[in-house]
């Protein structure tokens, strides 16, 4: 039971307190582009959650091997990337053969799997020395953080796109950046960082 709460608390931490997209900037471009065109958004987010959970757990499990744990940071990076690619390829091949998924769907899955958000999770686990359950929590939190981020951005962008009072130079991407900056500022507040120390 304790482990379950560990998992949950890490997930909540990843969603609200250190929202990966807003407080870390991980996968921000995917989130902004997905928020601008939220088609198959839930599928995309579920895919991100799946890949981050599996990769996170698999990478953490590898660290139980003493030889792997002792490796340097640079080699760890290679291992994490290889593990992510492996997870992606296995999933994609299974999807292709078992579920007869279309290549188009697999391409979308590729974007959701091979991005900074998913790849960052093993690094974060490694840095924070999270346990296996906590690593699953970070993976889960990453997927949910992405959903929250896209939902917040998407709603604001709808309004931005209809606002005619925005100066010409700021319309479009600049306004979106400023809007995301304000959201990011809000989430920085959740983490309790003091800006005026």
């Amino acid at each position: 039971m304790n482990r379950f709460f560990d998992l949950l608390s890490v997930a909540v931490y990843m969603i609200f307190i250190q929202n990966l997209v807003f407080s870390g900037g991980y996968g921000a471009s995917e989130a902004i582009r997905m928020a601008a065109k939220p088609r198959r958004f839930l599928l995309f987010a579920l895919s991100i959650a799946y890949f981050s959970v599996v990769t996170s757990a698999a990478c953490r499990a590898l660290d139980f091997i003493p030889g792997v744990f002792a490796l340097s940071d640079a080699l760890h990076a290679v291992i994490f990337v290889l593990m992510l690619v492996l997870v992606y390829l296995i999933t994609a091949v299974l999807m292709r053969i078992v579920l007869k998924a279309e290549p188009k769907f697999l391409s979308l899955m590729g974007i959701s799997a091979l991005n900074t958000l998913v790849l960052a999770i093993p690094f974060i686990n490694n840095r924070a020395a999270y346990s296996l359950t906590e690593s699953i929590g970070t993976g889960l939190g990453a997927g949910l953080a992405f959903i929250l981020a896209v939902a917040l951005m998407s709603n604001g962008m709808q309004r931005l796109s209809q606002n005619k009072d925005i100066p010409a130079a700021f319309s479009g991407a600049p306004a979106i950046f400023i809007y995301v900056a304000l959201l990011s500022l809000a989430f920085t507040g959740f983490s309790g960082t003091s800006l005026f120390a």
Partner: protein
Amino acid sequence: MAGNAKSKPLPLPQVFLRGILIHNPVLVQVIGIFPVVAAAVSLRTSALLAGVFSLVLIITQFAACAFLKKVPRWIRVAVYLLIGIAVVFPVLYILEKNNAGIRITLGIYLPLMAANPLAALRCEKVAVRSSIKHSFFDSVAASIGYSAVLLTAGFTRELFGSGMIAGKTVSFIHPASGMLMPFGGFIVLGFTAALLRWYVLRRYPKLAKETAFEIVNTSVRVRQIPAPRFSPAEEEPAEAEKESPAPVLAVSDMQSPPDSLPTEDNDGEAAGDIQTSDDVIIQPEDDMEDYHGESGELVIMPEEEVLPDEPVSGESSAEELSPAELPDKEEIPVETPVSEKVPEAVPPDDLQTAKQTVSADDDSQLKSIFPDLYLSEELDSQAIDRRIEDMFNSLEEYEHKTPNEE
């Protein structure tokens, strides 16, 4: 423009102009912003990141162009990541051996450069569809554009966040540590993007459309789908009814993309692919294409077409009115005593019927009678109701006015 790009590659200055300014990866296409936002906190780290990124992009794009054209797309995207880590690993290794300080500063950001989505985008859009030479120059242009943004962000954030320029403290700036956080990065990006957009609007007004960022309306989109165009000859309800299924179709129901959409074989640098509002709203279910933006650059539907203010004369205004707004508009002919050709017995809740019964003549007549109603910026029902009330209050004045304007 699209045709030119398709038949032969753009001339070199054009490639660089577009790669660096018009289609700037970060500021215009909004891709690969993670390193800028998270890691570019000083000029030094920015320079390192820019160097690593340029290497990753140029090598990945070259490899994709040379070897990966026949490989299925879903495998290619994984290969890009592998190439990325193969490029980043030596840098990581050397830094780890020699200089621990910068490794700590860059934290986990440097290895994450391997998964830069910009490399995947440029490869998919340009590299696998064009010659090695074109692909190389494209990657160099994109690298310069990306590096410029990284360095600008690094310089600005170092100056305002740490009060330093390239590691040397300056006295006249009081550091605001917030600039070093991701939200500071977003703010810097926002203002830099605005600066770029301002410059492009002034210097290259013809290309300004290409710097727009498309936002597809979702919750409100259903209401904003314009009714199908039907000519004034097809005023009869029976004829119009044949065309009626189109406006209620949700986008997901559209099976075939319209002809005017850029096709799959379109060159990635088909820069002139500005879509009309209709094209943007009714899009194919191609998620990958869609997610990356059609042919690499992002387009926006002109705002006037999202919320049309003034109907085009000769065409029915019904085609531009959103179905939700129609009932409100529909009240105008019903309530105004002047209009003669008001269709009778229009059930206000039936949008289809309502749309069909607004004919072009009715509309142009209405327009001539209430010019300022149609010119009004706001189209919401309350405003229209208010206007109508005002007009009724000053009906006498209006009767004087009407013949003059007609």
